[in-house]
């Protein structure tokens, strides 16, 4: 994956589906000066309708299930889903809880899993870069 594979800037929408804030503050840390993903053109946007990539954190609680599905449907094609954190990938420490509907891939198709509890900002950036390369490929095929 070369830098020429990345033709457009990537806009990201963040959905907190019952996360503990750990992954969320690492996502914000990735945006702020030390990691500064905005220099690559990656930007957090306020609505899923503007987004290319959905960043999902959290094990998906019962009340967030339909909201997550709705956000996924509102995101225009081509779209990719990146799950940040162990909770979203496997439900993590909450696996046996009565109020968990996840993991995320049970509800919506997931393209990239970023592991860690919480993952470091570097790992989140790598995950988004992988999703980006995948997105550019799907565009070429079409």
């Amino acid at each position: 994956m070369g830098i020429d594979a990345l033709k457009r800037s990537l806009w990201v929408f963040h959905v907190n589906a019952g996360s503990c804030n750990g992954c969320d503050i690492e996502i914000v840390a990735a945006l702020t000066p030390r990691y500064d993903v905005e220099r690559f053109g990656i930007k957090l946007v306020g609505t899923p309708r503007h987004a290319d990539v959905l960043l999902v954190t959290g094990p998906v609680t019962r009340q967030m299930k339909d909201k997550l599905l709705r956000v996924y449907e509102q995101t225009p094609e081509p779209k990719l889903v990146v799950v940040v954190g162990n909770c979203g990938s496997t439900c993590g420490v909450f696996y046996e809880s009565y109020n968990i509907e996840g993991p995320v891939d049970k509800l919506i198709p997931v393209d990239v899993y970023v592991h860690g509890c919480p993952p470091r900002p570097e790992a989140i950036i790598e995950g988004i870069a992988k999703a980006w390369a995948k997105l550019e490929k799907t565009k070429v095929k079409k």
Partner: protein
Amino acid sequence: MKRVHQNLPKISTMVKRMADNEKKVNIPIGPIHPALKEPVQIEVSVSGERVTDVNITLGHVHRGIEWVGTRRNPIQTLYIAERVCGICNICHPMAFCIAIENAANIAVPERAEYLRTIFAELERIHSHLLFLGVAAHEMGFDSILHYTWLTREKVLDVVEMLTGNRITKGIMMIGGVRRDISDSQAEKIRAAMDYYEKVYGKMCNIFLDDKTIKMRTRDIGFLSKKDALRFCAVGPTARASGVKKDIRQDYPYAAYPDIDIEALTPEFLLKETRGDVYDRVVMRAIEIKQSIDIVRECLKEMPSGPIVSEPVLQKLLFNLKQVQGEGVALVEAPRGELIHYIKMEKADAPSSWKIRAPTYANLHVLRTMLIGSELADVPVIVASIDPCMSCANRAIIADKGALLYQEKLRELCIGKTRRLRGATK
């Protein structure tokens, strides 16, 4: 011309009539909304630009933590306690440990108490810097967000050096802590504290002198001292209204009894305490300075000795299995008073675990603050109590139709009396 003008009603009555005619509009904010970092639903009724009523719906981040905790042994549960909240993940496991130690009568070594205090204060510095950034972001002052979050990385570096991770630290253990601080590490913490002393000076310049911050936060979202007491507000939210309450001062735990701590109010930096958003923002800046002093004093006074009372985990678990009793812990989290309650009944897992997080207490004052404010001030007022929804969501109402009101409850109560009477006859 003069007569026409005279026939018109006065402007003040016209405005009043317009306000009367205006329909109230309900604006739902959330659960997924760009102004919110966490899922919570705030329904605001507005008349014109003024907020007339507020309704807050919680439960979106309810993960059944307390229930999960009663199905695993205390050491496994410790790591769930850490994941109650990603921002305050020293104070939750610390409160959990203290509650179990109280139930099981475990004495914590003195050095471990000091280490716990240092970790708790490092967490407070990181949490308050995070808050100052978020508050500035809500005002639209993103340069401050980026500045505070850049300076926050330094404390995360220190935490990573001490514990091995930036966010979830995994440092607490029942009866002590898991890792010691060496002399070379202590030197690095001192250097970081010197750095934060400078940051604090700059932060004071920004928050005390900058016009934009004063314009957007002065005299909005009032919380009077009376209301703060009436709704039992806790932590910086209460202190910014002039209520001098702080668990570290009132019911000291860990190494706080050895350190002279006084609950501060905004009068430390400002001439008066008004209880508005500005006071609550300045309050956090003041507490950063207090935390720096506490960390320095702890490093200076720290005694030598063991860091955990029982290093063999199997033995600790075996001992905990014999425990019958209950324990309560009060801890001053960055957002205020945090309570953990544990009941142990000679079993693998605790039979009951209850958490009351500071945000739960502070959400009640939100309504008082919001009513009468402008709609454009709602995000900054909500942010000013530093809400942490993942801490506060301890229960959900699964079926809203089944809500029990007083009449229904009384009906059920009378029914039971009749049933019991029938059974005895």
